[in-house]
Each structure stands twice: as structure tokens, then as C-alpha cells.
């Protein structure tokens, strides 16, 4: 769950780039990922991909959608005030003006952001007019509308003045957003928000045309009618009849159970865009539930690339051992941590020594092997992925490091002896609290394989768990319901929404984020007794729940422009969490694997969405979309 983030160097770099862009005029630049590189990637062809399931949570309606695959496509379909270049690694997490002509004018108290839009950026068909600041404001009004369930709304409610997520209709204007003319938009904030520019890169803030969207009042409905503000449009957009709400039929290019197809937006002007390469003429993503088939098609050449499906081990084996195939296997940082979460109000995990012992005993190498080895990721030594902290903690920081990452029984037992749950001080958890603990897990590989490793590790310190394997969404829903008091879970992972540590910390470790259902602060860090009674749970007697809320606030005060200090602050917080709070046993920093075919002449990874970058890749197939 969750998406992107990262650190940002802002004003100076943005200005410099704007100057450079103005001077050079168009054409994004390649990132650093593998694949054949040419000086000028050839244009044309269709990027043909397949995915086992879109997994859209809001029907592809940008206002509410939060699935990463959607963001891969939104990068081609929409433009936002600020955007990344959709390339790999740290460079791919930097944010630049996209619809905005320049970096914004920010008031000295950090509460007022003034943007000027680039002139003459047109909507895609069937519309025939320029994008205005009112279209951008309308997108925010939709976010603010309760029935539309903006799943990232919490990044704006209480941040932008007048946005509380309770509006009944998107026609309600927001007091904190001013549009004095068609080219200007001003945001007034409630409090200084260091990562506000990053939040303006989210697809929900992309402009939306009122004349089309006003017909779609329920969450998800607009998803089949998305009008393009970017270099590509949904195939068949030009045929959309917008004369009345009744005359509109879903755009042919998106069939939620079959495929999504994008073609070039004829109204798009490359000269206004220095972030995207836009080499291919079309992008197609088909649903193919047969994962093995996806990879054989890529190998055969009938598909150009996989998307989010990870290759099964036999396929991986083939690609790792065949020298001809190996360059086509791309492994990029997913900016995501997979972890075991421990509930601070359920014994025995209410005792910090037990939690530390769990960190010492865990056979992380075994879990990595279950996943498929280093191609799939690196063993996690602390909570936030290194790239998210801009490596501030350093690669040597491994507070619970053990030989070969197999776990250290001696150290774990030493730790356990200090716990109240080891009554005879033999280093093993004894007593009723140590057994029959429900452990939630997913019901697919590699989690089911990893489960065996975790169960065996915990057994060594006397903790016996009862694994419950559920489908991914059910697994999440179960641990997100505070009342369920799930002691320990293996299914959880967290990836950035945007490139800033706060996108991790806020939802995962801040006590004020705890809610009754849909809660992502699984350990319940910072839970107060008022909250406890509100949610129908109780804090065990004799247990104090520490909170890091103050640390979070301190770090949030530091603006993005001071990236170094900001990242260092969050890195220190991660250290404190690992050593003094111990909410999790982090075990993997995932890599996302993309397998490309021989027709791909330029591969690029989109660090923002975590999958392939459709606006920066090039192919040499001569396919067309009819």
C-alpha cells in the first residue's frame, strides 16, 4: 500500500532546468537504467504490455485512485502543476514544474503558494480549449467532495485552507484556492507544509474539465471518461459525445475488465514539456491473468514488457542464467519496505524486550530466499528505505545485524531474558501469552513461503503463532481494524506516495493517524488512552505507549528546500524507532522487476510510480493502434 516519495532540491534546480529547457527546447533526457541506449531514441511503435490485474481501487478516476499502476498511466495521460521526469532512482524523485511555468512564489511564512500556468496548453479531444487555473481548482473541489472518496484527500484536508473533505458537491468552491485569472492559481495553507510541492505532483490534482466531470457524481464513475491533459489520451476520446450527460458513453480505450489503450493526444505540444520523451505512438496494457503467459509473450516478442507482475522463479532462473536474456531483466528500487508488524497493546508484544528479541531472531536471509534472492530486494536493516532517506543512515547501520542475516539465537535469548514474559529467565518466552497468537498473512507466494521461515524463527524464542492466510485486501482490512487486536502480521508493506519521508512516517508512526478502521499505524505507536476507549480497546496495565508525534512535528517544520536537514531529521527518527521504540521487524526493501523484450530499444523505470516509465521508453516494433 502507499506510493511514492523522496527528497527534493527545489527552487534553484528548478529554475536552472527551466532555463536549460527554454534554451534547448523539448525532449526529456534518459535516466540511468539499463537497456540499449541510443543518442536519440527512435519514435514510433506501440508499447505493448500486459498485467494480471489492474487492481484499480477507484475505477481509474484520478480523484480517488491510489494504485501505482494507475499512476504509471496517469504520467502519460495527465499533467500536474509539478511533476517528476518519470525516470529512475534519485533523479526520478525530483520534482519540476509541469503545468506551472515556473517554481511557485512562496510567501515568507510558507503559507501562500502562487503559480503561473504555462500559456496555451490545450485539453485533449473532444475538448477544444485551453486548460485554465479553474480546471486545476475544479480538481481540488472534487477532492474535497465527500461522495467522490478522494483516497489521498488526507494530504490536502486541513492543509489547504477551506478543504475538509466534507463538501457535498464539486461545485463548492474552496476558500483557500484563488484563481484571479485563467493563468494564475494561489494556494493558501493552514500551516507550513514542507512537502507541499510534492503533494502537487499527485495525479488527483491534475486539472479536470467541469463540463465532462459534472456528469459523474459517484466515486469512480469518471474513470471511463478521463480527458487528457498530457501527451497521450485514451483511444477513442475524440469520439466522446459531450453534448449532454446522457449522450456520453464510456470511452472505448478503457475496458476495466480487459485493457487500457492510449494513443497520442493531437492537441499536445511537445514544446511545452521538457519532462517527457514521448517516443512511442501508443501504449497498450491488457489484462492477462496468466502470469506465466505474460512472461513467455515478452520472451517471444508479442509483448514488449511486463508491468507489475513479478516473474515466477523458473522464469527468473532462465533470465539470470541466460546471457542473452539477462540485460532484459531490470531490477529497480521499489521505495518500499516489507515488514512484520507487532501490536503494542497485545501481549507479549507489549514488552519491548520481546520485540527486540524478535528482531534478533528473525532469519531474514531465509525470507529473502523465499522471495527469490537479491533480484527481488535487499534485506531491510531499518524501517524506511535508504533511498527515501537519501542514504542518511548509511549502509552500515544495522542495529540487529546477525551473521549471514540468519538470526542470532544467543542475542535474542539474552534480550528475551529481560522480558517479563520469560519467567524462568531461560531466554524463551513462556506462559499463555506466548502461544496461540494469530498472525495474519497473505495467501500467495512468496508470503506463504516466508511464513514458514517466520514461524520457525519465532519458535526459537518460544513464541508460537497461528498463521491465518487471507487474500491481500482481506489481510489488510483485518489488520487495519483496531478492534481486531491482531498481535502480529506478515502481510504488510509500505511504499512511498511521493518522495518525502513524511509520506512514510505520517501514516505509519504518528499516533494522531490512528483510526478505527483503515488504520495503517498497526503497532499503535502513540496511542492515547482516550483513543483506546474510542476504538474499543484497552492498553494493558503497566504498559506505557511511547509516542513520536513531537519528533514528527519537528521534522515536518523543516521545508523541502532544506532537504539535507529534513532527511537527517527523519533519519534520526528512524534510528530512534529502531532502537527505542521497535514497532516492526523490517525484512525487505523491495525491488520491482520489469522484464522487457527484444523490441525495447530504451528501457526506463519510473521511480514515481514504481513501474515502467511509459513516457520515456522506446520500442522498435512497427505496431500501430487502429
Amino acid at each position, binding site marked *: *500500500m*502507499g506510493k511514492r516519495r523522496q527528497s527534493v532540491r527545489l527552487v534553484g534546480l528548478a529554475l536552472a532546468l527551466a532555463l536549460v529547457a527554454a534554451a534547448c527546447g523539448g525532449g526529456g533526457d534518459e535516466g540511468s537504467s539499463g537497456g540499449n541506449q541510443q543518442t536519440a531514441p527512435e519514435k514510433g511503435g506501440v508499447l505493448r504490455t500486459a498485467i494480471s490485474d*489492474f*487492481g*484499480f*481501487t*477507484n*475505477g481509474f478516476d484520478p480523484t*480517488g485512485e*491510489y494504485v501505482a499502476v494507475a499512476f504509471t498511466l496517469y504520467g502519460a495521460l495527465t499533467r500536474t502543476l509539478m511533476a517528476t521526469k518519470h525516470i529512475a532512482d534519485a533523479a526520478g524523485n525530483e520534482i519540476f514544474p509541469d503545468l506551472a511555468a515556473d517554481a511557485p512564489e512562496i510567501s515568507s511564512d510558507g503559507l501562500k503558494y502562487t503559480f503561473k500556468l504555462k500559456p496555451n496548453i490545450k485539453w485533449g479531444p473532444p475538448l477544444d480549449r485551453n486548460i485554465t487555473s479553474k480546471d486545476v481548482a475544479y480538481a481540488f473541489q472534487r477532492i474535497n467532495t*465527500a*461522495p*467522490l*472518496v478522494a*483516497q*489521498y*484527500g*488526507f494530504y490536502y484536508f486541513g492543509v489547504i485552507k477551506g478543504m475538509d*473533505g*466534507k463538501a457535498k458537491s464539486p461545485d463548492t468552491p474552496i476558500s483557500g484556492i484563488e484563481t484571479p485569472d485563467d493563468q494564475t492559481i494561489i494556494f493558501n495553507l493552514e500551516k507550513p507544509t514542507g512537502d507541499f510541492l510534492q503533494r502537487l505532483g499527485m495525479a488527483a490534482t491534475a486539472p479536470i474539465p467541469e463540463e465532462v466531470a459534472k456528469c459523474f457524481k*459517484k*466515486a*469512480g*464513475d469518471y*474513470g*471511463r471518461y478521463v480527458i487528457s491533459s498530457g501527451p497521450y489520451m485514451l483511444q477513442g476520446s475524440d469520439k466522446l459525445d459531450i453534448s449532454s450527460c446522457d449522450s456520453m458513453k464510456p470511452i472505448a480505450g478503457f475496458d*476495466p*475488465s480487459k485493457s487500457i489503450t492510449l494513443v497520442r493526444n493531437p492537441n499536445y505540444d511537445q514544446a511545452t514539456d521538457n519532462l517527457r520523451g514521448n517516443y512511442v505512438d501508443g501504449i497498450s496494457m491488457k489484462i*492477462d*491473468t*496468466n502470469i*506465466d*503467459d505474460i512472461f*513467455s509473450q515478452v520472451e517471444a516478442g508479442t509483448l514488449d514488457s511486463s508491468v507489475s507482475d513479478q516473474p515466477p522463479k523458473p522464469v527468473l532462473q532462465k533470465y539470470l542464467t541466460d546471457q542473452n536474456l539477462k540485460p532484459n531483466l531490470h531490477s529497480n528500487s521499489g521505495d518500499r519496505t516489507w515488514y512484520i508488524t507487532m501490536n503494542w497493546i497485545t501481549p507479549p508484544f507489549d514488552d519491548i524486550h520481546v520485540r527486540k528479541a524478535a528482531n534478533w531472531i528473525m532469519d531474514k536471509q531465509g525470507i529473502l530466499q523465499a522471495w527469490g534472492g537479491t533480484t527481488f530486494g535487499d534485506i531491510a536493516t531499518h524501517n524506511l528505505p535508504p533511498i527515501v532517506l537519501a542514504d542518511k543512515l548509511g549502509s552500515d547501520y544495522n542495529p540487529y545485524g546477525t551473521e549471514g542475516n540468519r538470526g542470532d539465537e544467543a542475542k535474542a535469548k539474552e534480550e528475551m531474558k529481560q522480558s517479563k514474559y520469560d519467567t524462568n529467565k531461560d531466554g524463551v518466552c513462556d506462559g499463555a501469552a506466548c502461544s496461540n497468537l494469530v498472525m495474519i498473512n497473505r*495467501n500467495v507466494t512468496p508470503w506463504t513461503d516466508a511464513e514458514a521461515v517466520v514461524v520457525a524463527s519465532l519458535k526459537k524464542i518460544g513464541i508460537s503463532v497461528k498463521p491465518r492466510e487471507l*487474500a491481500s*485486501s*482481506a489481510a*489488510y*482490512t*483485518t489488520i*487495519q*481494524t483496531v478492534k*481486531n487486536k491482531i498481535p502480529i502480521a506478515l502481510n504488510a508493506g509500505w511504499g512511498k506516495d511521493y518522495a518525502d519521508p513524511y509520506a512514510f512516517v505520517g*501514516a505509519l508512526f504518528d499516533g494522531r*493517524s490512528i*483510526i*478505527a*478502521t*483503515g*488504520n*495503517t499505524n498497526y503497532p499503535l505507536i502513540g496511542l492515547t488512552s482516550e483513543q483506546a476507549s474510542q476504538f474499543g480497546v484497552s492498553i494493558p496495565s503497566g504498559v506505557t505507549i511511547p509516542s513520536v508525534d513531537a519528533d514528527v512535528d519537528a521534522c515536518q517544520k523543516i521545508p523541502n528546500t532544506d532537504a539535507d536537514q529534513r532527511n537527517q531529521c527523519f533519519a534520526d527518527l528512524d534510528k530512534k524507532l529502531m532502537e527505542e521504540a521497535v514497532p516492526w521487524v523490517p525484512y525487505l526493501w523491495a525491488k520491482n522487476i520489469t522484464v522487457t523484450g527484444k523490441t525495447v530499444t530504451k528501457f526506463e523505470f519510473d521511480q514515481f510510480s514504481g513501474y515502467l516509465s511509459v513516457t520515456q521508453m522506446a520500442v522498435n516494433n512497427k505496431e500501430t493502434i487502429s
Partner: protein
Amino acid sequence: MWRYIVRRLLWVVVVLLVVTSITYVVFFVMPSTDPAVTFAGKNPTPEQIEEVRRNFGLDKPVPIQYLTFIKHVFFGDQYGWPGLGFSYSTRSPVKDQFFDRVLVTAQLAVGAALVWLAIGIPIGIISAIRRRTLTDRLSMGIALFFVAAPVFWLGLMGLWLFWFKLRWSPGTGYVAWDQSFTDWLSHMILPWIVLAMLYAAFYARMTRGNLIETMGQDYIRTARVKGLTERKVIFKHGLRASLTPVVTLIGLDLGALLGGAVITETVFNLQGIGQWAVASVFQGDLPVVLAVTVVVAIAVTMMNLIVDIVYAYLDPRVRYN
């Protein structure tokens, strides 16, 4: 006769109502998790969850939801007739995907049925005629093997041998026949055979048993005495009597299969309604589960009804039971 049919039709409706209400209870009442939360995104506010619940129609009391559902099935909803609601996952009408899915399952079921009839019945007949010979023992032995073997194991073994090792089969998955007839055929052959083997074995054993029993009857002896050739005796008299129960059984089996040959569809990754329903259960996409349950229940009970009508037509005693 008509009274019988009408009575049975009414019974079909009753069965449907009971089955769907049980399904409703299992999926909507029993779970302790709220489906709305699954689809409300991350960190949903309670208001957002409420909105999703309203969108999904989950804010009304369960009995009202159930009655609305029944009303929609019979009279249609905003997406047309029959009103099967909209899928939580794709947020598009269930009806739209339904036909494609049923088509795949139908292709699997009918194709397999043709195969198993073509294999099973002749083998059964031959075994009955050549009773206690090596042919008989061998074929009944093989039949026993296939009756006992689990379908998913046969499927996996089939894949391993014909796809992985011999490269004769293109592997799992489904290709629509209008997209490429040869691809469609090559993908369906292995699932057809695997599914058919079980039923072929069963039908072979049954045909053999029935034919042997029929051949022991008096009227067969009479026919023989009358001077008919053995071949005529078997094919004209023996088969008709022994195949009648087989024919009705085909109806029942097809009805059940159309309910979704879940295991076969899962192993071979065919997008039929069985696989769809199972995936939807795991995803929490309840409208799909309900829709499939309704259709399956209808298919099974209608098939039972047809079979019973045929029986009643043939045997008047049954009608007055």
C-alpha cells in the same frame, strides 16, 4: 403433466431463494470485516467509508439489501436486465463480464462432455460385450485410475508432460476463438482431456454396468430367441434401455459443470465463471459472488428439472410421488 411441471417450477423458485439467502448470510452477514473498508483506499476517514458503503448499497439493513437484490435479479437494475449489480473491483456492471465468462465455462464443459461421451460410452459398451476379457479388465482398471485421480493433479501432470517437457501444449490460459481459432483449440485441448478423463471413466463404468444388467433381462433373451443378430440385440434393444439413465446423467453433470469447473479453470487459468467466483471471494467482490451463485443455482435446478421432466415423461409413476 403440466401440474407437475408447474409444481416443480415453483420449487425451483423456492430453492433459489433459499440458496441465495444462505449465500447472503455467509458473505454479507457473517464476515466481521466491512467490505467498504477494502475499497475505500488507504487511511479512509469514517466519512469516506460511509460514502463507499452508500455507493455499494451496504448502508441499508441486510434484509432490505437482500430484497433489493432479489428485485433487481427479476426486474433489472440501472444497468439493465438481469440486474446483477456492479463489481466492487472494476466498478462496472457485473452483467457486462458475465456473458464472456459463461461462454468460456460453456466451451470447457461442452467440449469436455463431447470428449467424455466419445470415449466413455464406447469403452463401456465394448467392456460389457467382452466381459471378463483382458480388454475389459484393462479398460476398467484404467477407468478406476481416472475416477480416483484428483483433477488438479492430473492437470499439473498434464501440464508438466505436454507443455513443459514435450512442448505440444501452449500452456495455461485462454484465447478467444474469434481471435484465433487454432490458438483457442490448442489451449482448450489439454483442459478438455483432463476434465473429460474423470467423467469418461465414470461413464464407462456406468455404461458397462447398465448394459450388463440390461442384457440379463428377459426381453433380451426373447429378442435373441426371436432370431435377431447379437449386434441388433445389443444396439437396438440393449443400448436404449441402458443409455436412458446415462442421458439424464449427462444433463445433471453438464448443469453442475456449467456451475463452474472451478478446479480445472484454476489450474489452467481459464476465465470462466468458476474461477471468477473464486477470485471474487478472495478479493471481497461480493456482487460477483452473488451473481454467480444465483446463475449457478438456476442452472443446476433447471437442469434437474429438465431431467426430472424427461424421467416423468418416461415413467408415469414418478409424477404422482
